[in-house]
Each structure stands twice: as structure tokens, then as C-alpha cells.
């Protein structure tokens, strides 16, 4: 199976991967949002997620679209907006 070259599919893949990270780490995400150290707390999971994403998406597409970074905000941060935090 070739690498993904379509930006929409790349973004969809990133969202699915990060949705799983959130699903399997609900408490960590909540604590990370509350303490404003989400990315530090999820460092290992996010590195693994990023590696999985990079294996499947054309490097140029990944870089140009910043699909992973966008999905990171959309999925992990935006979906956690109900959590009380000093960020918002």
C-alpha cells in the first residue's frame, strides 16, 4: 500500500490516530489540559502516534499540510474544551 498523498486523507488519518490516543488516555489528557502540560504528559504516546502517521503519509504532504499538528489541536485540545484549564 503506497503512502498517502491526498491532504484530506492525511488529515483524516491524523484525526483517527489522535482520536485513539485520546480514547486510550482520557485521564492523562484531562490532567494534561488542567495542568497545561498536555504534550509533556503524552510525549511517548504522541511520538508513537507521529511515527505511525509518518510511516503512512508522503513526507512532503505531511510537512506542507501540517495535518498532524492541525489534528492535534482539533482532536486533543478542542475536544477537551470542557475541561477547566488556566489556558481558557
Amino acid at each position, binding site marked *: *500500500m503506497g503512502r498517502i498523498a491526498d491532504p484530506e*486523507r492525511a*488529515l*483524516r*488519518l*491524523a*484525526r*483517527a*490516530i489522535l*482520536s*485513539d*490516543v485520546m*480514547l*486510550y*488516555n482520557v485521564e492523562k489528557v484531562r490532567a494534561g489540559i488542567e495542568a497545561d502540560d498536555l504534550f509533556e504528559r503524552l510525549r511517548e*504516546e504522541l511520538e*508513537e*502516534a507521529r511515527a*505511525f502517521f509518518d510511516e*503512512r503519509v508522503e513526507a512532503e504532504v505531511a510537512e506542507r499540510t501540517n495535518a498532524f499538528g492541525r489534528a492535534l489541536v482539533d482532536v486533543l485540545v478542542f475536544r477537551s474544551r470542557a475541561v477547566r484549564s488556566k489556558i481558557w
Partner: protein
Amino acid sequence: MIKSPSEMDHYELLDVPREAAADEVERAYRMALATWEGGSLATYSLYSEREVELLRERIEHAFRVLSDVDARAAYDRRLGGGQPEEHALPLDLDLTFEEPQRAELLAPGLELQEAFEEDGTPYDGARLRRSRLQRGVELEQIARVTKVNPTYLRFIEDDQYESLPAPVYVRGFVSAYARCLGLDPARVVPDYMERFETARPSAAPSLVSTRSSGRLAAGRRGRR
């Protein structure tokens, strides 16, 4: 070989051992009902509404018998004597999978032409999850389309067989999951159910499980 509901005795239908205590029977009954509850049923894609209705009645009947001490004793005597089972209701669900894949069962945004994959490895939970992620489909999307409880979908992907309900339901769940991803249920279901039947302990199922790693890499999750 998985029996069809029409061939199962009451214990098999509720997925409890013959010696199951009353509370165990009740727990299994509630789980079976929840599985087949209106609007939360994956296997509506496999069964007609009438078939589901009959199955629910069959589950109700099994529970009524097994939760009544006298009725259960009489039933056990009949089973022990090898007498033909007397089901209160006719039920002959066809559990073969001859329906073609249907586009309306695909997860939103997924097109059939991008859905096929061939890597030859058997379909276990980890492979199902990889297939899902490769298609960019979130577990919640599958839950919405198939109406399978997302907790069960996670158990399927984690190969947590002991946390899943009776085989007849799991078969329907896995089939619905496969269809949703555009996979061929005729290939996916036998693979998955073979592992399920090999690994599944005889104890009654429990919804409580603490094993869940959520790791992404192939071969690192759900292994025993």
C-alpha cells in the same frame, strides 16, 4: 463451529455455564438484552427486525426458565436426558454472510475503492485496528454507523475476548465492523471468530477489564 441461536440451549444462548448461579444468569441476561436493545444493535445490518424481535423473545424465555428454580431443574433434566430442546419460539436465523458489501454501511468519507487491502495476515483485533486507522476512521464513527457500543468495539480491537458477549453477538459485531470499513466479512469474521473461540474461557463474560494498552504498533497490543 458456532451454533445458530435456533440450535442453542438456554445456557448457550445466554453464554453461561450449566452450573451458573442465579446472579450470573441475571447478569448474562442483562448483557444479552443490552446487546440486542432497539437502536443499539449492530446486527440490524444482518438480521431483519422480525428476527431480532424473535431473538429477544428467545432470550427472555431462556431467562424465565433459568431464573425459576423448578423450571430450571425440569429443563436440566430434559437436557441431561438428551431430549430435543423445546424452544418456545421458532427461530432460525441465518448466520451466513452472503450479502454483498453495501456502501451505506461504510464509515462516512470512506469510499469503496480505497477500502480494500490485501496483506494476507489473519484478522485479529490489532489488524482490524490498523485497517481502521489506515482508512482514517475513528472508532466513534464506526460506533455511530454500526450502532455497536464503542466499549465492545474497543474490546474487539484489543482482543479482549473474555469481555465480549456470546459468540453469536460478537460475530454480528465483527461483521458490522468489517462492512463499515469496506472489508469482506466472509474473510474477517472466520479469522476473528477462530481466535475468539480458541481463546475464550468458559467462564461467564464480564464487562470489567483492566487490560488495555492502546498501543499503535502491530503485534504489541492485545497479545497473550
